[in-house]
């Protein structure tokens, strides 16, 4: 178990190093000038700007400096927010994205498992047909549509009731989190529902279920211990990447609901060629994704004793 964990961690570090290197060179080869702005500047100011950000050095040296700082956990200072450290940006905004993301994953996982189990239980009956139709909607409609519709629904609801039940946008209290996290988790919930349904159907027709019934085990026990527990494994497998994807992919939802998460900085940095923020957020998110995948692999062993971590 410990050897396995250590091995995975070393692999993870190599992966993150690879992400950092690839991003560094890809970014420097993206066409465009990170220091250009609406107003043209003189040669002298241009040279001073390049010196300020170390862009006047050869690319190899820049890479070496970058890696040295990365090891110390220093991502440098943003190009666009000139007096702000990238570390501060991540520190201030990632917890918000993470809170939103974790809530969304919880909604998605609980919803996915429960709806999936329900559809499998009532397969080809009315609840199954209705839910599977909604699932197709949830998978195919992009989140910005749901975000816009969700917000419009809130406005109309508040208007109808004549008072603000739930805030339309913003961040800070639980009432701010509810609708955005539901919206953010919807796509994943739909996907997990389908996964859970097919996995459950497979389990239901398995021999050991028939054996359990033949033994006369109570229905609740068969359902929870034998069916649900076995069917849930594939869901857990995809949960790790899903957590990372949701936490990093909330840009549109964050924008619509005016949530000060990290997603906005991530996307704007790329648009603005803000080198330090691109590097900082990409490496951070990359490391986060790698970490989540490792965590899920470890959890897998806990949930399913048949899996040996070797």
């Amino acid at each position, binding site marked *: 178990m410990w050897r396995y964990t250590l091995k995975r961690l070393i692999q993870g570090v190599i992966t993150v190093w690879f992400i950092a290197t690839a991003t560094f060179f890809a970014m420097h080869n*993206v*066409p*465009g*000038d*990170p220091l*250009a*702005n*609406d*107003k*043209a500047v*003189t040669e*002298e*100011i241009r040279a*001073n700007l390049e010196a*300020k950000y170390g862009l006047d050095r050869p690319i190899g040296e820049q890479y070496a400096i970058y890696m040295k700082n990365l090891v110390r956990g220093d991502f440098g200072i943003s190009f666009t*927010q*000139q*007096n*702000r450290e990238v570390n501060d*940006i991540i520190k*201030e905004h990632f917890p*918000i994205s993470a*809170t939103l993301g974790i*809530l969304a994953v*919880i*909604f998605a996982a*609980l919803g996915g498992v*429960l709806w999936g*189990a*329900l559809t499998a*239980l*009532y397969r080809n009956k009315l609840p199954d047909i209705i839910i599977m139709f909604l699932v197709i909607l949830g998978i195919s409609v992009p989140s910005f549509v749901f975000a816009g519709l969700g*917000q*419009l629904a809130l*406005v109309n609801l*508040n208007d109808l009731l004549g008072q*603000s039940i739930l*805030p*339309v*946008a*913003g*961040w*800070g*209290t*639980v*009432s*701010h989190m*509810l609708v955005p996290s539901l919206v953010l988790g919807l796509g994943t919930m739909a996907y997990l529902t389908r996964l859970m349904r097919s996995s459950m159907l497979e389990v239901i027709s398995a021999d050991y279920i028939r054996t359990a*019934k033949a033994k006369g085990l109570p*229905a*609740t026990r068969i*359902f929870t211990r034998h*069916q649900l527990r076995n069917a849930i494994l594939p869901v857990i497998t995809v949960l790790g990447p899903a957590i990372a994807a949701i936490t990093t992919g909330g840009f549109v939802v964050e*924008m*619509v*609901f*005016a949530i*000060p998460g990290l997603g906005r900085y991530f996307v704007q940095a790329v648009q*603005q*060629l803000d080198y330090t923020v691109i590097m900082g957020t990409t490496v951070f998110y990359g490391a986060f994704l790698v970490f989540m995948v490792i965590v899920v692999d470890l959890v897998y062993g806990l949930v399913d004793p048949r899996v040996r971590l070797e």
Partner: protein
Amino acid sequence: MSDITSSEDGFTRTAGRQLALFFLMAIGGVAALMWVLSIAASLTSSGTTTSQAVDAETGTVTIAFTTEPPQLDSTLATDMQSGMVLGHVMEGLLTYDANNEIAPGVAERWEIGENDATFWLREDARWSDGETVTAHDFVFAWRTALDPKRASEYAFILYPIKNAEAVNTGKLPLDALGAQAVDDRTLTVQFERPLAYFDKLVAFTTYLPVRQDFFENTDGKYGADADKLLYNGPFMMTSWVHGASLRMDKNPHYWNRDKVKLNTINVGYITPDPNARLNLFKDNNIALSGLTAENLPSALENRWQIHRFVDGSVFFIEFNHREDRVTRNLNLRKAMLLAQDSAELVYKVTKIPGYLPGASLFPTWLMGVDKPLREEYPANLPRMDLELARRHLDLAKRELGVDQIPPLTFLTGDNPISNIQSEYFQAVFKKNLGLDVKIDKQIFKQRLAKMTSGDFDLVLAGWGPDYNDPLTFGDLFASWNLNNRGRYANPELDRQVRIAQSSLDPKTRMDAFGQIQQILIDDAVIIPNYERGSVYVTHPHVKGVLRRVIGADVDYTRAWIDTGA
């Protein structure tokens, strides 16, 4: 058979009940989790507090920003959002009044001579920590902005001050700058050349004061947070949660505090999504929201107070005048200018309310000697004339020695309006002149890089004003101007720009702008597209909100709350 079915049904029913129980547990669990989160969130208090758009009791107006200011160091600021906040929390030597006329700020009296200026500072101008604003604070700010090491992009706006350019390029030390604090309350400035519009320049953001001791105590993070900035304006920033909110409270030390009616300007939301902002407005969370063409009808239906505003920027197609480009040919440029109609673009294609069809580099709001410049010197842009256009095109082909003009590269940005605009022109030039235009769509930074290196034939460009004088537009196509990315060079235009820069006689200067306008049209240097505008709605209880083409926009410094309306 029936037995088995009934036992199946029994299993389903039991399992279904179990599932329903799980559902309830899940809901309970989530509710508990959210409760815990709410406590955690309130402890870190990183966010917005939901409030009404207008709170008459506390004198608070809540608004939304599209983006947050990158930082609020006035010596580095370049963008509109920083200008808006700094316009509320800081005050320069001079400022603009409600009618956009120059008014006293920190300086109570000033004299602008041919080659120098003197400002006498008021005794009661205070920083938010109670200390007096002195002439030294201005000298320090200007030197800081010009410090080569700081590489401020807006340093050029200080260049009319003696030795400023030499200081900025490192040829002279900082203290060689032609600005001195004679004593705490007297500031003298020498000019590089005679300067008719220095009063308007000192109202600009880069000219705002910075106090040395405070600046040096911020450890290179001046303006990065609410407590990393010292204020001398009508308001002071009391909190700034990055990406989420920003709060400006009335500054009790401000000399003219009796004129400030609002107690708090609460920027409660930051989102670039216009629909989200309108939804916030609908829900009575913010007091002002812009309207897009799509949601204008619903605003009319709701009988909201709709306002129009021309924001001061002009947009145009700029030609590349470099040697190796076919667009250097005057007849080709004339043909293209004559083959399109900016009114059609604005009213039938982009259809964004508030926009004005373009006719000149100089926008309609600029003042001439007594009346608007465009009234004193009308822009006689030729009307669309396809026959004449095709004749110019034939001439161009003959001069260039080609049967067919090679495909033209049309550089544009990647935003929705640029897409519509560039595709419209592509179709128009094909239909009316048979020209092939290739659209080269690029992200902001790459578009700028290509503009600077001259990698285009046509480019969608725009220009916004820095100060309230026609020169802010007038020198754009001077041969030495770095923002003249098409490298247009015309000795006669350069001569007129020099007159406008250094003459002190208003009539002579306006004549020069009239000449510049005519040269740009005769030489078909640009194809004017539009003056950008906007349509917005305001809360009926908020009065006195000013929109400005120069300086802080939107300006709430003179706003008040009137619940009677």
